[in-house]
């Protein structure tokens, strides 16, 4: 149970003392590391955005080749920066109640920043310019702009960023489900069914849902990215464009969407501290998040409305779920937050003002998005700058604003003060005028039919880019003014955290004076959350073990010579057979790892398990290209060894998954198998 703060700084509402938990140094440090790195990346990418808008306005002369390089970096970098910062904010509020692993979080940081560097090198040095959504097969039609190594660097970078997020998601899932009685407990299902007297804290429910959906999206992203990496060294790999597009958008849309839900988890905890009213999960809240759990992963298909060959049911389901996804946001998150603020004698500080205005960005930007998700409307707005308008509204005016609010909140708590009203109102007003002005120019131009991702604007539309550039400059000024207010707060926070004032008397003159002396570093931090419980094996009991054994026997069919021979009539069937062999190995590994003797011998090694479930399936898919397996098809023993190696990859994956506990173990085994199936569906040729 978290410790409630005995005394609060004056920046927070006095009533908040009853429910504001004390945080530990590690939470503040890791939260700030991620948020500050994220905001720095966002600032740099924002500068690139300004360069693009000025190019469209004709104010600077960037060649189309460079424009699209910059555009690719801007998109990939922004997503990474916002994701990093959102992860930090969520980690900060979640670790107060759940024992998240610092080492895994720092591992995520390394993977994501390393990935961002690879993307930077691929675009600025290698010239890669196929957009961060890299729709296959565009990366392999460079028209002289980029070379193969830059493709490898870009895809490896994206894999690394996605893996970093996957590690975060897995740790969140393992710890929230461990602390709150399994998945049903952590998402509040048991509370909804009156099995639990109390619901988990809101941030636990939100983070669990986001982590689960995030793991699904990362798997789709890994499947297509590994296919693309395979294509870089084997031109025989081809793609089913429709399936590939589904995977890209399932990954890309979902990850971009999850960022805002991730930051919202921190807002549930931080905003009430300024309103002095606690925010607790109710049955409506739980119901909303359970709905969001499904809706977040089903809405992506609205990116494929204009792909008329997409199955009709998927288009219709997507339009319904796109609209339905508005309900939990509008009726629960945004509405509840405004209820907390209304008549609360709200404490207006830099952090709390940013947090409040951020709510409006989600409401307004979300409305623009929902309008565009109606199919007959999308028929006239798809891939116009209307799309750019709505996602910039909630990324600039909600996500970025909330990240600044999160940093400001941490600093204000330690500094026990905030910036002056004039300074903060000026900065925030500049951001609002600039931000809404910029997105307004895109909304109007989108209604005019101006396409997105144009280095050169259609004739007669330059005025929108000129006005947009001016507004973007205003936003940048406001953003910098906010940062400028954070610097003295950071200095003050540092000083108060490390030094304290002490009244002294000068022994010579007898005069009294105030001295700053270093705080006693031996003062204990707040106690850590309860340690994680020991991980149980994913397969529990004779029934589950018997079922897994039966499935292994059935999947032996993937090794029958007749099946292998029949599968070689088509690349897709052949890859499906490989997936079957991997399935057999994975189940076998899970089965063995869940039995008492093997489990004891393997020991409690979640880190090793995580490495296995991430690395081994990836290696297997990189080997699953025609260049490797076609030469073996004429040699019986080598061919059989290749297929056995695929099952061996599965075995290692299953053993790794068995070290991750019930939920994460089953989920990662399922996702590894799903990844091979997605790979089989998307790749053709050879």
């Amino acid at each position, binding site marked *: 149970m978290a410790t409630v703060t005995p005394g609060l700084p004056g920046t927070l509402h006095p009533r908040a003392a009853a429910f504001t938990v004390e945080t530990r140094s590690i939470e503040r440090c890791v939260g700030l590391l991620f948020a500050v790195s994220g905001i720095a990346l966002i600032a740099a990418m924002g500068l690139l955005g300004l360069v693009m808008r000025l190019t469209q306005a004709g104010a600077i002369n960037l060649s*189309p*080749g460079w424009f*699209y390089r910059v555009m690719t970096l801007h998109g990939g970098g922004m997503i990474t920066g916002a994701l990093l910062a959102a992860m930090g904010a969520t980690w900060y509020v979640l670790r107060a109640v759940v024992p998240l692993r610092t080492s895994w979080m720092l591992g995520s940081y390394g993977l994501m920043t390393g990935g961002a560097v690879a993307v930077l090198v691929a675009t600025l040095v290698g010239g890669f*310019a196929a*957009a961060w*959504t890299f*729709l296959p*097969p*565009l990366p392999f*039609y*460079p*028209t002289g*702009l980029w070379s193969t190594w830059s493709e490898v660097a870009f895809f490896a970078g994206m894999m690394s960023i996605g893996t970093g997020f996957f590690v975060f998601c897995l740790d969140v899932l393992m710890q929230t489900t461990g602390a709150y009685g399994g998945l049903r407990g952590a998402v509040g299902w048991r509370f909804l069914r009156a099995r639990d007297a109390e619901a988990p804290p809101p941030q636990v429910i939100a983070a669990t849902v986001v982590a689960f959906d995030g793991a699904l999206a990362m798997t789709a992203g890994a499947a297509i990215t590994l296919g693309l990496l395979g294509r870089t060294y084997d031109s025989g790999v081809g793609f089913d*464009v429709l399936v590939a597009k589904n995977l890209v958008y399932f990954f890309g849309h979902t990850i971009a969407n999850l960022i805002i839900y991730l930051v919202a988890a921190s807002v549930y905890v931080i905003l009430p501290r300024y*309103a002095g009213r606690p925010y607790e999960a109710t049955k409506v809240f739980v119901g909303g998040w359970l709905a969001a759990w499904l809706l977040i992963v089903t809405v992506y298909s609205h990116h494929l409305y*204009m*792909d*008329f*060959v997409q199955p*009709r049911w998927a*288009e219709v389901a997507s*339009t*319904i779920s796109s*609209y339905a996804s508005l309900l939990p946001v*509008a*009726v629960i998150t945004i*509405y509840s937050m405004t209820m907390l*603020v*209304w*008549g*609360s004698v*709200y404490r*207006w500080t830099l952090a709390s003002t940013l947090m409040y205005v951020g709510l409006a960005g989600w*409401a307004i930007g979300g*409305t*623009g998005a929902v*309008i565009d998700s*109606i*199919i*007959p*409307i999308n*028929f*006239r*707005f*798809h*891939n*116009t700058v209307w799309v750019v308008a709505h996602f910039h509204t909630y990324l600039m005016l909600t996500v970025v604003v909330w990240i600044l609010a999160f940093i400001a909140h941490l600093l204000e708590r330690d500094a026990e003060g905030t910036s002056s009203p004039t300074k903060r109102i000026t900065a925030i007003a500049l951001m609002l005028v600039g931000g809404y002005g910029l997105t307004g120019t895109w*909304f*109007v131009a989108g*209604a*005019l*039919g101006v*396409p*997105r*991702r*144009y280095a050169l*604007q*259609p*004739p*007669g539309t330059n005025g929108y880019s000129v006005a947009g550039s001016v507004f973007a400059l205003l936003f940048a000024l406001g953003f910098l003014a906010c940062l400028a207010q954070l610097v003295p707060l950071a200095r003050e926070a540092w000083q108060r955290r490390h030094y304290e004032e002490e009244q002294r008397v000068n022994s010579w003159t007898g005069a009294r004076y105030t001295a700053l002396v270093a705080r006693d570093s031996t003062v204990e931090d707040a106690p850590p959350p309860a340690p994680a419980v020991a991980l149980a094996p994913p397969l529990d009991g004779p029934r589950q073990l018997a079922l897994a054994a039966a499935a292994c026997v059935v999947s032996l069919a993937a090794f029958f010579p007749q099946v292998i021979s029949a599968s070689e009539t088509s690349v897709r069937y052949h890859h499906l057979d490989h997936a079957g062999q991997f399935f057999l190995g994975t189940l076998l590994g899970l089965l063995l790892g869940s039995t008492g003797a093997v489990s004891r011998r393997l020991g409690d090694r979640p880190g090793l398990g995580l490495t296995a479930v991430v690395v081994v399936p990836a290696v297997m898919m990189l080997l699953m290209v025609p260049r490797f397996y076609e030469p073996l098809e004429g040699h019986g023993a080598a061919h059989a060894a290749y297929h056995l190696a695929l099952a061996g990859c599965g075995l290692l994956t299953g053993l790794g998954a068995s070290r991750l506990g019930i939920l994460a173990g089953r989920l990662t085994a399922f996702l590894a198998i799903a990844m091979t199936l997605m790979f089989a569906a998307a790749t053709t040729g050879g």
Partner: protein
Amino acid sequence: MTLHFGDPQIAIGVVFAVIALLLAAAFVVIGVQAGSDISAERVHRIGYWLRKRWLALLVVIGVLVVGVSLFDLPYANGGAGGRTVVKVTGGQFFWSLQPGRVPAGTRVRFDVTSVDVNHGFGLYEPGGHLIAEVQAMPGYDNKLDLTLDRPGKYEIRCLEFCGLNHATMEGTFVVGGR
């Protein structure tokens, strides 16, 4: 060709602007009243009363708007029937349309594909107003049915990022007099 506004984009833009202004006004009002001291009981009583109606309103709007929209899907159904089939092929960075000209009032079926990467077939009528779009995908044929009454030169722009000359990938389609 200079772009021009047209329906339904103007109507949709106006509806969005009105909703955005109403939302902004609501946030300003709540923000102004945030400094006052209203009891938690009163906030809950009014807030939850209003929330039920807010939810009901959004559900009704959703059922109506999404429901009606499902009767107006742009997807072509069945065979070409009596339609004139225009084979559209996109490639880096060109559009090929066969035939490139039809009489006004012709019921056209655009059969759209690509020879290399994904492109977006965006059709702007002679006034410069975007009237339809569909993706051009390698390996797939997307079928778009339209009746083109207005004579003149229609412009085609690429509406899916396709590489270096995406912004200048243009084509034309002529609708002659009746």
